[in-house]
């Protein structure tokens, strides 16, 4: 059975995801989930990943309120009903 977590985006990124603040997308892991988001919304890619293919530093990913680094990183297993939040931070210098 496909896992269909709910994904929440910061308001700023809504432009790239059809003006939705949340939606459901398939993904058994965070990696799969991000791949499927980008299949649906390819224009988001440069704002989600840097040139090395790494998640941009202004995003933190939480699964059911727990930061993914405290779980299994990008290989964290996702289940139906899980809530994945792409939370932004801001930095500079």
């Amino acid at each position, binding site marked *: 059975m496909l896992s269909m977590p709910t994904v929440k985006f*910061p*308001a*700023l*990124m809504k*432009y790239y995801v059809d003006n939705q603040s949340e939606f459901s997308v398939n993904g058994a892991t965070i990696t799969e989930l991000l791949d499927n988001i980008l299949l649906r919304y390819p224009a988001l890619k*440069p*704002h989600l990943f*840097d040139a090395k293919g790494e998640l*941009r*530093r*202004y995003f*933190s990913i939480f699964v059911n309120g727990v930061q993914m680094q405290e779980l299994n990183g990008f290989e964290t297993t996702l289940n139906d009903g899980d809530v994945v939040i792409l*939370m*932004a*931070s*801001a*930095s*500079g*210098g």
Partner: protein
Amino acid sequence: MSLKVTNKILEGIQQHIEAAYPDEGAGFLLGADGEVREIISLPNAREDEARHNRFLITPEDYLKAEMKAMELGMDLIGVFHSHPDCPNVPSEYDREWAQPFFSYIISRVDKGKTVNHRSWRLVEDRTQYEEEEIQIQ
């Protein structure tokens, strides 16, 4: 491309960044349609030794600011921060962290006093910033 602000908004920014000196001070710009109507000044969450040339707004503060903007019927439209004792042009580090659509006001603060403000936006392909005019209303 331009960013509309009032003197009151700029005074609020100035007050925060001068209080933060010699560290960088930062916060959010709230408004709509290229017009700043409110600011949220925030603590610099970077570690002590990095605050003189780096700032960080945590995800928690970011989320609270988004909720505040929604309450006020506005959007987060940008970030302001200071460059203490150095030019107020975006650094490479600024570009790495820049988010699309945001206006970035960078203010130069020399010896604790604000010199001027400039505003910048990331171009869509993320390769550079473009300066935008600050229109004081």
